């Protein structure tokens, strides 16, 4: 196996460049949130709705949409949705025609960063002559690439620019963590990792983590938005004006549920592929190795999340918390478990 060191150096340079470019897009996204929500408020100006009066009809959240449409005209019931309409973004998350120059710049810069980042990952793979996920540095950088890729792909269908700050911020953090926390020179794979299952198992795990990163960001926004919605419905002045650009908590929850369902399917597959690989390498498919314990914990937390959505009293804020807890477990699994706990997965010695 030949290691091409020059290419490896190029890869590191690209990675650095990508991190800086993401940082620029992060700033642009943040700028968009700040400036655009201000612009929105300005446009509404004095015409802002009289909140207290509107709430007097007794808000019945989640009343069947059909019924409310009928009755609204006769002044009986108003749904929370119509009441929140001026305060949150469109639930369909479609693009509107408004001009958001900062957001456009942010997306364009992020695409550029993604290209440079992809170049960094690919050159690393070529330099090492294998798939670029054989150690922590590589999991982190490839994972960040997937996060950015999933996010940019999702932008094609939906206007998710409101999570851009969080997503680009997380990507910058991942790249910094890789470069500062786990710097590793380009090298060949140890025998334990030389298997097709590495390609399958790890790529799906990285993809699942990428999806969970985005739903994590959405869950955080959902909690903030839910808090703000309660203020709106109570007739108070809602804070956090940037959340005007963000759809309602319910809409965020619906979309993140669908993404989490895909992520959960991926994670299920990761878990099973890991078991198959373990069976081939170590002779048992499940042995409660530290890494296996945490993979299992994560799987169970997201299974609980799937159930929470179907359980009375567990939708909304609580299920957002489950999504956040699941993601924290993923972070923990990746950082602490990989570095602190010893186990078969630490590949120490033979």
């Amino acid at each position, binding site marked *: 196996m030949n*290691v091409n060191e020059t290419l490896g150096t190029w890869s590191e340079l690209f990675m650095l460049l990508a991190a800086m470019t993401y940082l620029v897009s992060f700033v642009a996204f943040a700028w968009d949130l700040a400036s655009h929500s201000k612009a929105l408020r300005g446009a509404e100006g004095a015409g802002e709705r009289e909140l207290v009066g509107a709430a007097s009809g007794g808000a019945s959240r*989640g009343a069947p949409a059909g019924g409310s449409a009928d009755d609204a005209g006769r002044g009986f019931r108003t749904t929370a949705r119509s009441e929140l309409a001026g305060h949150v973004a469109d639930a369909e998350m479609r693009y509107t025609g408004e001009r958001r120059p900062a957001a456009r710049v942010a997306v364009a810069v992020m695409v550029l960063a993604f290209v440079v980042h992809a170049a960094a990952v690919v050159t690393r793979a070529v330099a090492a002559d294998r798939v670029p996920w054989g150690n922590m540095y590589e999991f982190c950088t490839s994972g960040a690439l997937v996060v950015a890729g999933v996010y940019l792909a999702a932008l094609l269908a939906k206007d998710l620019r409101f999570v851009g700050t969080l997503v680009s911020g997380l990507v910058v953090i991942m790249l910094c963590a890789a470069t500062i926390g786990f710097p590793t020179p380009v*090298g060949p794979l140890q025998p334990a990792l030389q298997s097709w299952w590495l390609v399958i198992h790890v790529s799906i795990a990285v993809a699942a983590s990428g999806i969970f990163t985005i739903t994590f960001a959405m869950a955080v926004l959902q909690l903030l938005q839910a808090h703000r919605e309660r203020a709106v419905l109570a007739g108070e002045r809602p804070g956090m004006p940037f959340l005007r650009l963000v759809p309602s908590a319910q809409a965020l929850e619906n979309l993140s*549920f669908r993404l989490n369902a895909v992520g959960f399917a991926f994670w299920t597959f990761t878990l099973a592929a890991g078991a198959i690989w373990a069976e081939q390498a170590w002779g048992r498919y499940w042995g*409660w190795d530290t890494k296996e314990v945490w993979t299992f914990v994560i799987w169970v937390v997201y299974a*609980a999340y799937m159930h929470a959505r179907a359980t*009375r009293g567990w939708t909304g804020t609580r299920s957002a918390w489950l999504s956040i807890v699941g993601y924290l477990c993923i972070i923990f699994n990746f950082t602490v478990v990989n570095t602190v706990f010893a186990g078969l997965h630490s590949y120490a010695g033979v």
Partner: protein
Amino acid sequence: MSTSAPPSSSGPSPGTSPEPPRKGEPGVELPSLGPLGMLRWAWTQLTKMNTALFLLLLLAVAAVPGSVFPQRIQDPTAVSDYIDNNPVLGEWLDRLQLFDVFSSAWFSAIYLLLFVSLVGCVLPRAAKHWRAWRAQPPRTPRRLERLPEHRAFALGGRDGAAEPAPDEVVADAARLLKKRGYRVAVRDAGTAAPSVAAERGMWKEVGNVVFHLALLGVLVSVAVGSLFGYKGQRVLVEGESFVNTLIGYDSFTPGTNYDADWLEPFSLRLDRFEAEFNRDTTVPQNYGAPLDFTAEVTVQDEPGAEPRQEVLKVNQPVEVNGVKSYLVGNGYAPVVRVTDGNGDVAFEGPVVTIPTDGVYTSSFVLKVPDARPDQLGLVGLLLPTAVGEEGTMPRSVDPGLANPQLILSSYYGDLGLDSGDPQNVFVLDVEPLTELNAMMSSNGAIKLDGANRTYELPEGKGTIEFLDVKRYVGLDIHYDPGKTGAFVSFLAAFAGLLMSMFIARRRVWVRAARGTDDDGRPTTVLEYGLLARGEDPRLHTEAERLAELWTEQWQSAGVRETGGAGRTTATATPAGTPAGNE
């Protein structure tokens, strides 16, 4: 599942009332219940969705200590070390089964309850679905405009075309829906307002049931494996054979119900072992890292069978009738001969050493209980590629065998092997022994290499000769009869999961009735509504698709969207329609 409410698109309001009163739940008033009633009550509680959720979260939390404390299934020595270092805490942790989390009473209780809950939840659900499958799609609601998606079209009137008869409209709609994968039932045919009820996505629920039951299958398979499987370990030096019998193993752990008579009578000889190391110096940190391990073995399925050559690698076990042998370790086994003080050969053969670092500096322990007049003990290091000037401590600089050297200390005395207490072959307790020579003592360590192969022990205690270095492999041998079942169950679970998550279950109702349009001309109003069961982001798109279908079907007669049933004379509850909706 009687008590949970899967969210439909018009689902329960989030977080308004965490504990709403539940309908149709028998026996919640406790005091009046007898033992049977108590049982039923417990069962109802257990099979609630809330309970399942709680148990799942509990399971996740309960698994965590299994990664915090050392576990006996992983590393029994780490557990005894832990207990030695923390005697009080350790004993308590042990009492709470925190070193055996995954076989502990409490962990088992959680997952068993969870699976009981699962069965109690899923079987009734499966039965209900079975009935739903055989029954017709549900009756047409009286007020279609209450459904999350609802539209109405006026048919007829284009270029003087007559309006189609309601019965024909309904029959055509039924045919179109059927083609789109719905199962359909025509209702109230021949009345003023016939309708068709249609439903699709029945496989979604099947997927859910299969998924949950397959999880049970995984559990059962794991249980089968731990009852009727076994695992064992064996270190095998080049040239040696392993015969699959109890005495062939260095360690053997049978499953709870495994009988050692069932061992497959195969044998396996290690012919050659080869390790390849990284010699690329461009990145110094990676120099000497292992690249590839290959063991060439000869396998005989049973005594007298045709021997076959196989290659054993790290990710490539050798299988004989379901028993798999894995390459899990390797190292060097220097071959030495020890002649005792009486001049007899007391030991001759390979000594398995344990690598302690990346360049295979290996620790060597040899106990020679047969030496006379005194038993001998030797400890030290094997350096595969030794370097070091005179007077400095030699060290190994490469994992390969360029200049193998043995550096040993020797002892004599009673090794304590006759006491009957089990001893670790890789550890020599020098406390009761007398030192002959050592690194630190005046006569220095024994140093043996290619140039100096023989060393005379002081005080005429004997001679040690360094003959050769062989390689050895560490084998894990596993038999798990539950493996196939677990794999098949997983496949079923995964298929079920995908079905359950990505099939949309929807209902459509179409009703047709005569009416008049805004200009008072006669027309037939086709009114339809859609309802999703569970998550369905595409319900609106489906409504759109159906609109396209109707338009295509009746465009020559004329199709116009109307604001809804209210603007036509066709009422939603025409006379003659049996009011059959709940």
